[in-house]
């Protein structure tokens, strides 16, 4: 599984990083990028939570 952040949609709500700090990096302006690599098995639930809480629908999950 991988997480993908759509930079066009991300507005820096920071919900993803709060829910799954390992999976999302936040830059100095507050915008998110997906951390490189695939999602470790024990963080798959956290990845889904981040997807379900992003107010901008900016996160998608690549199974």
């Amino acid at each position, binding site marked *: 599984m991988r997480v993908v952040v759509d930079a066009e949609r991300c507005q820096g709500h920071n919900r993803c990083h709060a829910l799954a700090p390992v999976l999302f990096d936040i830059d100095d302006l*507050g915008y998110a990028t997906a951390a490189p690599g695939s999602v470790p098995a024990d963080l798959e639930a956290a990845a889904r939570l981040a997807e379900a*809480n992003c*107010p901008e*629908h900016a996160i998608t999950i690549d199974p």
Partner: protein
Amino acid sequence: MNRPPVTDWTADFDHLDPTFVADPYPIYEQLRTDCPIAHTDRYHGVWIPTRYEDLAAIAHDHHHFSSRTILVTDRPESPHDLGFHAPPITEDPPYHTDIRRLLLPVFSPKVVADYEPITRAMANDLIDGFITDGGCDAATDFAQHVPIKVITRMLGIPDSDHAQFRDWIHRLIEESPIAGDATFEAIFEIGGYLAGHVDQHRTSPRDDIITHLLEARMPDGRPLTDEEILGVCILLLLAGIDTTWSAIGSSLLHLATNPDDRRRLRDEPDLINSATEEFLRVFAPVTMAREVIEDTEVGGCPMRKGDRLLLPFPSGNRDPEIFDRPDNVVLDREANRHFAFGVGIHRCLGSNLARMELRVALQTWLERIPEFTLTDPDAVTWSAGQVRGPRTLPFAFTAG
């Protein structure tokens, strides 16, 4: 000015009607069901979309919906019904984008994390002030002061003037829809006050937001004008205080009157993050406004250039199409795509800060005052206007 009481909410909505101020949620529920894009002739005509999807679509469409109007008032003039520019909230792209980028780093999650220990100490100091009394007004003795202390420190101005800020905020945000020219006096006063502090920073720069604004450069290399710096500072004071105060107060009121949730949050402190989001969803304090700048249509309703709209995020946050059991506080709610901080390009710049303040205020309160009750439900008062929160909260607890 006295207005007739509203009898038909679908055709004659009034966000200042006492019935609405006391409890807006049944009214929003009725509108979402019967008339999801309502219109009122009051305040020179206003649209009131109430469903989550419509609100999100409008907030994302800055090509048709401008932020030149952000408060719905009795004043007919536009743009800048607030009476002045308060960038970035009163602005549209491309200017909005440039000035917002200057401010984003100041409120990034990293910077906000640095303020957490100070915020906790401030919350503890406030509680020290009344814990031996066995009671307090949690709105005016506690909730109000947390955001004032934090934002004045970040800006670089003294917090000893808090009574003055409260008065300005009250006149500018809460009374402004009906205050006429009194609003402009408040702007003039607050502008004069802040101008003095900006001048002091010019001669002695410090590590704070005012200094950051003085040193900032727009993409074309120019510094900000005095008017821009003052506009931003006024906005940070206005947007940061009333709102967060409301969120802390509503959350404490819920905990005072719902012993099961109070105990659960105390016994399961890890729930604090999801609980904070849930309080923000259910008690979302802020309703924005927009002005149509190009004819368009929403949900079959034609909107004409010059029309104004309210954007009640609190209604969208209780839309049953999006949220399961929307009126219930579910402390461990998992999927919570609420938009208490708006969505799109105007997403609350202070959202990381506000979340931290709300969480730290609640954590500190529960640690120090684990059991507390509301002494008189009838004494609770609510602010009227586009920021909603309790303004009187008489609480009792065991003196500590």
